């Protein structure tokens, strides 16, 4: 019985981590609507945000099911406080200029895609099923981000400087995504999730290739900034939630 509860907890955490990353990043990216540098980017960013919201619904829906307390995806998205969120620090970082937004997206996509590929062979069929759907979207997101990082890194002096600045600021947050804790280790042992160290190594090789082509230099040895996966967030998250959860909090129980 004790084992059963523990099993549920690790699965629940995994679904929250995946879902919260998607939700918080969608929340950030969605704020660009109407403000992007060119119409095509307004459309592309809206696409990314839409895919991520779709994934949020699946992951948080599953989290609620695993938890078994009758909480829906909306309850989890709109009625949890910051400490209960499990997204990485990277996705909650501010939009900044378009270079920051793109670099944040690229660093996330670089991890997200191989992670989902790994989850497609999860021992848990529900997880494998969500990963199957989300992986195609994440592949497209990564292709798009990679392409833009290369073009802007190897563009003008200014575009290179902005992309380099964004990389310097955001790279320290990237490590957390593939940094395993006890929950990740348990999930890997049970073949529910891939071994994060292996994913991390693959991501690192991939980033090296792309940054070389983009003429950018990552601060490879920078200290990893972490904590979000365990609920220890940056100050940013509180403001994100205050905005996102406003209506649900102001009108408790109302249907929208």
């Amino acid at each position, binding site marked *: 019985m004790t084992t059963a509860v523990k099993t549920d907890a690790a699965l629940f955490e995994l679904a929250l981590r995946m879902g919260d990353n998607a939700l918080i990043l969608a929340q950030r990216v969605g704020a660009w609507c109407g403000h992007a540098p060119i119409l095509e980017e307004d459309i592309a960013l809206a696409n990314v945000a839409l895919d991520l919201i779709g994934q949020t*619904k699946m992951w948080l829906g599953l989290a609620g099911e695993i938890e078994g307390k009758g909480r829906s995806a909306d309850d989890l998205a709109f009625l949890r406080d910051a400490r209960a969120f499990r997204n990485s620090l990277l996705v909650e970082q501010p939009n900044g200029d378009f270079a920051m937004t793109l670099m944040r997206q690229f660093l996330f996509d670089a991890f997200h895609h191989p992670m989902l590929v790994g989850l497609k062979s999860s021992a848990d069929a529900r997880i494998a099923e969500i990963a199957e759907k989300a992986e195609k979207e994440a592949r497209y997101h990564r292709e798009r981000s990679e392409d833009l990082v290369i073009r802007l890194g190897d563009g003008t002096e200014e575009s290179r400087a902005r992309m380099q600045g964004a990389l310097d600021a955001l790279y320290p947050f990237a490590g957390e995504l593939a940094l395993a804790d006890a929950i990740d280790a348990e999930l890997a042992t049970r073949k529910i999730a891939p071994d994060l160290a292996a994913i991390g190594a693959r991501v690192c090789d991939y980033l090296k290739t792309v940054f070389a082509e983009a003429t950018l230099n990552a601060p490879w040895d920078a200290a990893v900034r972490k904590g979000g996966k365990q609920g220890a967030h940056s100050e940013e998250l509180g403001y994100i939630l205050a905005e996102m959860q406003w209506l649900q909090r102001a009108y408790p129980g*109302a249907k929208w």
Partner: protein
Amino acid sequence: MYAQMVKSTGERPKTLDEMSPEERAFQARVDADIKIEPKEWMPEGYRKTLIRQIGQHAHSEIVGQLPEGNWITRAPTLDRKAILIAKVQDEAGHGLYLYCAAETLGISRDEMTEQLLSGKAKYSSIFNYPTLTWADIGAIGWLVDGAAIMNQVQLQKCSYGPYSRAMVRICKEESFHQRQGYDIMMKLCAGNAEQKEMAQDALNRWWWPSLMMFGPSDKDSVHSAQSMAWKIKPMSNDELRQKFVDQTAPQAEYLGLKIPDPVLKWNEAKKGYDFGEIDWNEFYEVLKGDGPCNKERMAARRKAWTDGQWFRDGLMAHARKKRARKMAAE
């Protein structure tokens, strides 16, 4: 109805006798409902009026992203958030088709953007009103998209091929937008007292600005006659406004909301509603740039364009480098 007060030639339409042989042949095609295509001869006034009309329409789609985009981060459920993002994305897509349609008339997208940002080109007055509550997102879908469809359905028959075809596609998406707006209103009206009040307040604020979307009354619309003769504006402003009121009044009743017009009443004899006079002073003020959000909307668009300069330049520079490398390798 995004093109609201499009200047045409300012002249009355020419009679057949006054027309050159080319103009006569052109008018005969228009009268026979044969679509005019980009490479064909067309009167300069027709071309210019269409550029203004399509440009205004496209700019309205672009600026129109702002009031609704304002609520993306605050949408109350995951589904509502997804639907709203999809809707705002559609508006950007409409802008894109429309700029492409205008480009077939010999103007570039950058030139049109320049005209918008300098204030030379107009966009619909409706987007200069603020979205204060979630109910405004419902009211915009229901009323603003409802008014837009009224105009765009008739524009599917417009004489200019690329514009008419863009409208066919746009209309399909707009009817989805209107339904989602009405759906938000239905949810609010079936909700608690605060939600109902929110819905009524949104209707109070959006009703008259929505009627203004159809442009000045026919008696003050100096450019309509030529546009109607060219079939780039198949129906008059007042005809469309009447149709909109006739369609919308029963929908408000179904929601249990009261349209903020004491004069509004069914007229059995004309089989349509009588309704009150629009505050034309407000209409012209907003058009002139003195509406509640004109300054903010334009500032947001200018900021997006200026802040994005390095991005656009970077992509162009990379394309040039790539071409040069390819040529060096060959």
